[in-house]
């Protein structure tokens, strides 16, 4: 348990040398695949995700009866080589299914689905490398790809994770909230994934899968929401770069 040993409390530096409130390097590109309606490639530290959007297209029999609004479908495929050890994933992994559902619900909230009745917007995510904050990286990549596809949205959804040092209750006072956990930290610390809409504090996704003392939750959430705003600023820069290219007349 490297984080519970003395290193963090001595220097207040994490395993990869960051301080508690530092994000990892976040880079992204839009329109990476010209053949898709919209696409984006995003790296959060060593987590690498490709997202492609197809649609709005004819809905088919995805959700019969609804019809008045577009349906957002999410399909996540995690490459076998993405993790530390090669894994053969079951066809219907419950964790992946929950991530798909989370992302779909979040984006149905910001996309103007009423403009596209009886149609389907498919977000297809390919995880190339995993190093923590997978759900957050997927959400950020989806935001960029949807903007690239020109799907009307209220605002960005920006996501990141927040954790808390020391998973046991004895050193409650020494517990520090941490921003943007990597895989090693996710293994042993309680963490949550939070996503906010635009610059507001409106939380659209909040996923907490580990046990954590309720007293630490508020601090984690505050740090997470703050991190989302930093992420949003970075995404905004990426989108504006892309917008500048549109003005120059490039189509690809």
């Amino acid at each position, binding site marked *: 348990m490297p984080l519970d040993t003395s290193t963090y409390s001595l220097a207040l530096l994490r395993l990869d040398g960051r301080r508690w409130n530092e994000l990892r390097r976040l880079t992204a590109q839009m329109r990476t695949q010209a053949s898709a309606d919209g696409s984006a490639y995003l790296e959060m530290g060593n987590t690498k995700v490709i997202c492609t959007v197809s649609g709005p297209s004819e809905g088919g029999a995805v959700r019969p009866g609804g019809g008045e609004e577009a349906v957002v479908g999410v399909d996540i495929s995690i490459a076998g080589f993405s993790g530390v050890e090669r894994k053969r994933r079951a066809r219907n992994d419950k964790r992946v299914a929950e991530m798909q559902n989370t992302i779909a619900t979040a984006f149905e909230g910001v996309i*103007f689905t009423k403009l596209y009745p009886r149609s389907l917007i498919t977000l297809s995510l390919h995880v190339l490398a995993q190093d923590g904050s997978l759900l957050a990286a997927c959400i950020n990549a989806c935001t960029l790809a949807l903007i690239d596809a*020109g*799907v009307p949205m209220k605002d960005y959804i920006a996501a990141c994770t927040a954790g808390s040092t020391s998973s046991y209750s004895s050193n409650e006072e020494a517990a520090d909230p941490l921003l943007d956990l990597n895989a090693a930290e996710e293994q042993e610390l309680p963490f949550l994934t939070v996503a906010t809409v635009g610059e507001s504090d409106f939380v659209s996704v909040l996923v907490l899968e580990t046990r954590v003392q309720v007293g630490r939750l508020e601090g984690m959430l505050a740090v997470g929401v703050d991190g989302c705003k930093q992420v949003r600023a970075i995404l905004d820069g990426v989108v504006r770069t892309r917008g500048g290219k549109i003005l120059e007349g490039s*189509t690809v």
Partner: protein
Amino acid sequence: MAQTISVAVPGQLLGAASEYLPGPGTHIHDSKLFASILGPIKTTSPPKPAGPQKRLTKITPAAPAVLPTVSIERDISVGSGLDGSGKSKAEILPEVNSTVLCRVTRIQPRQASVAILVVGETVLDGEWQGLIRVQDVRATEKDKVKIFESFRPGDIVRAVVISLGDQSNYYLSTASNNLGVIMATSEAGNSMYPVSWKEYRDPETGASESRKVAKPF
């Protein structure tokens, strides 16, 4: 608002709803106007002489017309095509009845897949996928057509679009004398010349291969 911000991103404030009318690509939230897609901002003022001078006999509510409309242009679908002279990059798409040049990418017993390269006189930026079904290869004796005797991968084909097809393919036809293969390479790799309506010949080996040949002009 002296400063003009040229590009809007989703969620960007564009102004109060009392000052502008929402155009395409915008939405109203809390009686403010926001962008909902990425693209250049376009503000269109209503044409001033249009209203009252022409329609003196009608009583129309004049108030909303004086507001300028703010819209966000979507570059690929609508945008640049409007100001034709300046930007020649306006996307041209194959339409029904347009003549296209395409390269055969794959042949199957019932259809040939092609990549559309040229529409009319315009060379496309990208490629569009098309399909020539066996019944669309020629107009007569349709049931005797064999795809592999009509096309080979790599051939350049002149065809006409008969349908926009399904989501991924345009449906093309070569059922006319002037449509069909216009450039072909032999199995030996030499470019061939047409000798009849269904035959190409290799100038070096002298071997002939069957194709659906387009009538030369």
